[in-house]
């Protein structure tokens, strides 16, 4: 089926049926998931599917519908439902579809090799990865290893003449293991996702990271409740920074539901904090030539040296704010309306290695795992569970488990006094190791 023609003809059909403007979003996908456990295949799942979502505007009112039956009758029935549903909603002058016909050119979103590699080889990689991780003498059990791949094509057409499409794919491998000592148990896991199969990290590296993580926190020692420096490692730092991203959501800012709502061009964090959203990075896992409603993606500095430089918008939120869409319409599949999200987001690297940061810390907690929701994007409050190592006189002294760390965004982000150089640009969200001068730590 020619999906370019199909999406365009469905736009015309929507106008014929009474919509004033219309958008058709079609997605096809294929995925393969292989899980292995204890040297044997545990599950193999494979499927291909397609679905379509209709966004229509009737007198400034929005309606949406979706279906995965692409027969003519199903498509027409579903489209009619969107138009009927639109009539129920409140008109809003900001409800406009984008018209921009450009696309950003991005290299490396599709690896033609992935689908040609035989299933046996993919199974073997997962099995070898598990075997390697289990061969570490500190590791007692496996909780599984896996290989996954996915491929999708997106077609968007709207009544402003926009008609675009692109194809992307990617693959990933990962393993999770358990270290035990007496009654103690600890898990560790590591994975690697890439656009290109040949760019996947060597399985030796992944296996040893998983084993290290599982073994590291055996024999923890509880620490007393106190205020002290907190070093958050790069694998964990994202769980603190994520709440800032929610607070930079342009729609939330308009609604007053963001702790950064009044912070444009104002400082809210340490000058060591610079945050960039890059939608156009070659081979980026979060890259795309256009966003979830067809607006070209870009690279933008959101926070520069602790000062808010930009919020992120889709078309409707941008109209409301009186600005241009920033190409941040996010779409979680064909089943929903575009929301707002980031592409490849990173905190700019600082000057210190993680080792230097530890060496410069007289007394503090090196955090390697955080649980909880991170900074609350509405009011900036933060409280989480933490595990890691106690640091004294610049050295890791002993593992720590089951403590808490807490504070407000204002206190934590302004107290960042060292920024690491260890960003991993292969990830779609990456933050280097950083140190917070002082934070509340809850222990015994």
């Amino acid at each position: 089926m020619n999906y370019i023609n199909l999406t365009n003809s469905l736009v015309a059909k929507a106008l014929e049926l009474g919509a004033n403007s219309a958008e058709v979003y079609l997605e096809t996908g294929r995925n393969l998931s292989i899980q292995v456990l204890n040297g044997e295949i545990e599950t193999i799942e494979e499927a291909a599917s397609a679905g379509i979502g209709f966004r229509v505007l009737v007198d400034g009112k929005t309606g949406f519908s979706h279906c995965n039956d692409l027969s003519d009758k199903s498509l027409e029935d579903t489209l009619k439902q969107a138009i009927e549903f639109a009539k129920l909603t409140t008109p809003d002058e900001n409800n406009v579809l984008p018209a921009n016909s450009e696309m950003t050119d991005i290299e490396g979103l599709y690896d033609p090799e992935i689908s040609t590699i035989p299933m046996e080889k993919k199974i073997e990689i997962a099995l070898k990865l598990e075997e390697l991780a289990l061969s570490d003498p500190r590791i007692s059990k496996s909780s599984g290893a896996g290989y996954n791949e996915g491929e999708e094509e997106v077609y968007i057409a709207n009544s402003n003449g926009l008609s675009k499409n692109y194809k992307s794919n990617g693959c990933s491998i990962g393993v999770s293991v358990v270290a035990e000592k007496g009654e103690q148990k600890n898990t560790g896991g590591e994975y690697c996702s890439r656009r290109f199969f040949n760019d996947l990290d060597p399985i030796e590296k992944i296996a040893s990271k998983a084993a290290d993580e599982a073994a590291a926190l055996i024999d923890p020692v509880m620490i007393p409740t106190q205020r002290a420096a907190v070093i958050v490692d790069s694998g964990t730092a994202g769980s603190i920074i994520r709440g800032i991203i929610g607070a930079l959501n342009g729609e939330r800012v308009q609604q007053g539901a963001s702790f950064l709502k009044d912070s444009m061009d104002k400082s809210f964090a340490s000058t060591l904090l610079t945050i960039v959203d890059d939608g156009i990075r070659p081979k980026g896992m979060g890259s795309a030539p256009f966003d979830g409603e067809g607006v070209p993606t870009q690279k933008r500095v959101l926070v520069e040296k602790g000062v808010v430089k930009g919020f992120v918008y889709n078309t409707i939120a941008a109209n409301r704010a009186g600005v241009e869409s920033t190409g941040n319409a996010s779409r979680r599949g064909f089943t929903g309306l575009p929301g707002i999200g980031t592409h490849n987001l990173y905190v700019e690297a600082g000057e210190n290695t993680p080792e230097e940061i530890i060496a410069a810390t007289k007394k503090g907690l090196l955090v390697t795992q955080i649980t909880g929701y991170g900074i609350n994007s509405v009011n900036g409050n933060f409280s989480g569970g933490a595990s890691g190592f106690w640091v004294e006189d610049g050295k890791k002294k002993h593992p720590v488990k089951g403590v808490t760390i807490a504070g407000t965004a204002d206190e934590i982000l302004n107290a960042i006094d060292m920024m690491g150089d260890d960003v991993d640009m292969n990830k779609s969200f990456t933050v280097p190791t950083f140190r917070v001068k002082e934070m509340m730590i809850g222990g015994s």
Partner: protein
Amino acid sequence: MKKYVVSDIPRRDFLKMSLKGGLVFAASPAILSSLTSCGSESVSEATGMSIDPAILKKVIGKALEKGGDFADVYLENRVSRQIVMEESKFKNGLYGVSQGAGVRVISGNKTGYAYSDEITEEKLLRAAEVASYVARNGSAVTPVDINKAERKSYITVEQPLAEIADSRRIEIIQRANDAAMSYNPLIKMASVDYYDEIRSRVIANSEGIYLQDENPLMFFIVQTMSDNGKARHMSRERLSKHSGFEMFDKFSPEEVAEKAAREAVAMLDAEAAPAGIMDVVMMNGWGGVLVHEAVGHPLEADNISKGIGAFTGKLGQKVASDVFTMVDDGTIPNARGTISFDDEGTQAKRNVLIENGVLNGYMTDVLSAKQLGMERTGNGRRESFRYIPIPRMTNTFIENGESEPADILASTKKGIYVQSLSGGSVNPVTGVFNFTCREAYLVENGKKTKPVKGATLIGSCLDVISNIDAVGNDLDFGPGICGKGQAAEVDAGQPTVRIRGINVGGSRS
């Protein structure tokens, strides 16, 4: 390591998270769906889920052609409606239809799975062939003839969703919004999310069962934001039942909205919570999510059969205090977690997991029951035809005890009173869990005093159930979305309980 969470946005396994936009089908949030033209009298006719059982038999035969111990076919059709009001505007209306079928083959410990959006004989046979990959060179069972099986249903419908005019949905949403916004001038914004669906399923397997049913689900969420110029709080209240539209005759939208607004206003005065280990009194209701995470997930049999779960090898042992009894019950009439029969066709039932502190059983699906040599408990659930069934909870709760809730509070000298939790997660291997409080108060000399900011509670499952020393007689439930690589609708419940010595993540000493 998969994380097991209950939260607003279910977390996904690593691939699905990392391949942002790359695996949209698998990563779509609760894939909504379902069908069809308005005004149809009978939804089952509208959903068109009729299929010739002879085709299902043929597909099962094909699935086991290369070997295998078990095969099943699952057909699903889901019609959903969602209307969102935000800032007092009907922001959008969403309508969806989703249908498809999956074929699974189990051979020893191996599972093969494939699905298709198109429910045709050709596509089902193709899925069967793909799924049978794992069974190559294995021994085979001979599938038996499929026959309609009898299962008891615990879901009743008085006002079918397909017969409800959209204007009635709109009215409910407007009433909730008006109640929230007029509650107090400090409420600056309300968001009302109305969702309903009709899900039809057909299940057939190589043991000969053939089942079909159709169930409604309603999910109503009110969030309100308060702001007094100094502080801001986003609150939430949810209502959900497997029921027709009569849910709103029993629970008014105003009641839901006012509960949300009350929390938003109360929490504006919240102070920093203290940090460290202290006693926690948890109010009855949704607080049961703590044991859902901390104890329920580790009692799901998949990690037990792998030999890595926190409760591995502890059957029949004393694992909790005498006052602690925990149950998973998929038969509570019309509750959000109720399933009648699970997505593998096993009759739902009341399973006592821990009785007076002694571990009584795990929650199984077909595969883990076989691996452990235990009975099927009716916990094999799946988010949609795009996922394989895995052991999941239904309505999970701490059973009523004998204490008066007021006495539990009055006898607690110092600590935290938790009125509601946002959600949390657990590592099912180590049993280490965390929760975030949404509404909590200091306890001073047996009294609830000042509100405190959303603190995290952390601990390990075995410690927490040993440290529950008082259980009230006021069992209540709350609705949630449970994430374990795929989403499931659940209820969590508990009476008022006290837990001695939990680590509270406050920001002051």
